[in-house]
């Protein structure tokens, strides 16, 4: 800051206060309890009757397509039920052939919101998928943030770099939950996975040209192998960067070889992440509406998680600061984090709008279904998403004083963390459950549990090394960082 003003640089260690420990524990337990109540109160037998009316409305607004479901309403759980249902579907399609026009026939049964014949456990697995995916991506984006700082030779962020460094260790934990959700729930979450079991050939009744055309990419092997390989590769790089950072701490002063190596590993991460991150979004999220596609969907997912990852970093930094740690971090760093968050709030809104805009302009029926159900049946959710994730943060973060405030800024960050979780929830739930999805105790409980676990894990990881990257070549630059008047 001021000329000649000297700041003493010394190492700090963090030990998790018992308050934080009990708070995260309570959050996890509360999450589990809420989830338990949520599971207990799911209507396990008569789900058919609840969603049926809404389902018929959906059919009515979308021509003749899915009348067949009304016959399959009372089927029971499990794969047998699904198969049985599909027989009905086949019969239904044949029955209505005379009413169909050529274009829609080519695409097969486009809208398949058969919530009523999904076993009740689908609710659990889909929530687990949303939470696991969200936190996998949050931790991956923390690594992305970390790698960007190296690749861009950024100096300002060195004093806070231990926070994303701790966050990225959550990648494998969250991903395990995704895998669990996929193993147990994939046939009910993804209707293409269910379709895959049928093994239909061209000419068979109920044959779906679109799903068959996509099956080269959209198949069970791909669903498990591709993301797992990617996550292992990225986590390997993240771990490498972490160990380089620790080695640098223990190296003699002025040793830059670890820094230079980190730049190379960061570049390797950034390239593979940038090109391949969309694949996770396509496989896990977009394929819920398997007939639908949006070319911007991967970017949209990235924008969502990227901005919430920055929000998490900000909250952790301010928390540590409030506990008397991170003495080298001042309002200038917070202000820059705020600018970062502000910029990517706008980026998210831009992508959010333009995905809609492109589809709105083109007005192609098979592209409309994603928005049709969301706009017709979930209008408050649809607009609330925009208000929560753009309007509120935008108007607040526009102010310099809000970005530098020690309570407005973290509050907005928390709003965005919750808002973007809801955004991810909203990407898939209407696709899985049709018009009948709602935010219940289970959804809230799963989020709380994961949030508690993530915060607990990150704080635990923060204890493992000093909070200051003491030998980083840009540490001084960061300490004297100044964004000006």
């Amino acid at each position, binding site marked *: 800051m*001021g*000329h000649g003003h000297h700041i003493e640089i010394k190492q700090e260690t963090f030990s998790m206060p018992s308050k934080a420990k009990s708070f995260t524990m309570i959050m996890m337990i509360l999450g589990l309890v809420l989830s338990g109540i949520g599971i207990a109160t799911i209507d396990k037998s008569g789900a058919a009757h609840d969603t049926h009316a809404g389902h018929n409305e959906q059919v009515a607004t979308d021509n003749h397509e899915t009348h067949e479901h009304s016959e399959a309403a009372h089927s029971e759980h499990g794969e047998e039920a699904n198969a049985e249902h599909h027989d009905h579907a086949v019969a239904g399609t044949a029955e209505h052939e005379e009413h169909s026009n050529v274009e829609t026939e080519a695409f097969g049964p486009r809208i398949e919101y058969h919530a009523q014949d999904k076993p009740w456990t689908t609710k659990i697995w889909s929530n687990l998928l949303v939470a696991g995916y969200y936190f996998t991506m949050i931790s991956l984006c923390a690594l992305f943030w970390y790698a960007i700082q190296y690749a861009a030779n950024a100096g300002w962020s060195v004093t806070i770099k231990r926070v994303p460094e701790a966050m990225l260790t959550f990648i494998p934990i969250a991903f395990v939950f995704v895998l669990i959700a996929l193993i147990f729930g994939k046939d009910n979450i993804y209707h293409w996975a269910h379709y895959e079991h049928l093994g239909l050939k061209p000419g068979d009744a109920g044959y779906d040209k679109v799903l068959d055309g996509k099956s080269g990419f959209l198949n069970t092997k791909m669903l498990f192998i591709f993301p797992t390989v990617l996550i292992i590769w990225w986590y390997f790089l993240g771990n490498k960067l972490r160990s380089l950072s620790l080695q640098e701490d223990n190296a003699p002063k002025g040793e830059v070889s670890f820094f230079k190596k980190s730049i190379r590993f960061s570049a390797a991460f950034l390239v593979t992440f940038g090109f391949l991150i969309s694949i996770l979004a396509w496989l896990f999220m977009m394929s819920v509406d398997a007939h639908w596609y949006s070319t911007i969907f991967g970017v949209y997912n990235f924008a969502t998680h990227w901005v919430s990852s920055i929000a998490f970093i900000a909250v952790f930094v301010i928390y540590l600061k409030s506990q008397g740690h991170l003495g080298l971090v001042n309002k200038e760093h917070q202000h820059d984090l705020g600018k970062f968050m502000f910029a990517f709030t706008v980026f998210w809104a831009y992508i959010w709008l333009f995905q*809609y*805009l492109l589809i*709105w302009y083109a*007005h192609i029926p098979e592209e409309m279904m994603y928005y049709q159900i969301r706009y017709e049946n979930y209008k408050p959710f649809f607009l609330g998403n925009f208000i929560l994730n753009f309007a509120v943060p935008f108007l607040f973060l526009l102010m310099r004083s809000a970005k530098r405030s020690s309570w407005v800024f973290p509050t907005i960050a928390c709003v965005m963390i919750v808002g973007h979780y809801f955004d991810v929830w909203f990407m898939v739930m209407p696709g899985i459950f049709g018009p009948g999805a709602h935010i219940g105790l289970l959804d809230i409980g799963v989020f709380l549990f994961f949030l508690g676990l993530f915060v607990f894990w990150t704080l635990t990881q923060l204890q493992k090394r000093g909070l200051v990257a003491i030998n980083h070549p840009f540490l001084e630059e960061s300490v004297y960082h100044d964004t000006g008047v």
Partner: protein
Amino acid sequence: MGLVDKNLSLRNRNKMLIGVWEDEDALLSATQAVVDKGVHIHDVFTPYPVHGLDRIIGVKRSRLARIAFFCGLTGLSLMFTMIWYMYVKDWPVNVGNKPVRFSPSWIPVMFEGTILCTAFGMGVFFFLRNRMLHGIKNDLLDDRQTDDRMIMTIETCEGMDEKGLIELMKEKGAVETREFHHGVQTVI
């Protein structure tokens, strides 16, 4: 006080003491020394940003951001009005049966209009307030302040130790010292 503030013109102020520097480190320590003596520095003119200078001489936060906000609002409403007039009031056109009312396709126009007005508005107001707009006579104390010299100006007031300040400037590496009064510069 108009937008082009006559008081900002150096010609209309008290006698100014001027120091010229070639090196920003010397300039920084000089400004710090002058400020430490309790003297208010009128302004420092540098051809490029010198980090930390704004904090030392206590520059107030620019109000340009607020102007930018209102320029943005102007642009937004201007573009909204424009597209509403064209598309709804004056000449509605049926494009693929899209509704003739506010719709997503308006947003890019409004967005771009906001940015355009913000950027232009900021540019215009910035130069206007700095007295650097065309048509306003410039106020350069030294032509080299836009090239490779840094100029510190101190506005004198009664009871100021002018000699002492000039000495201090010289001691802190000023290559030239001058005074400026009613448009006349004198080397001292």
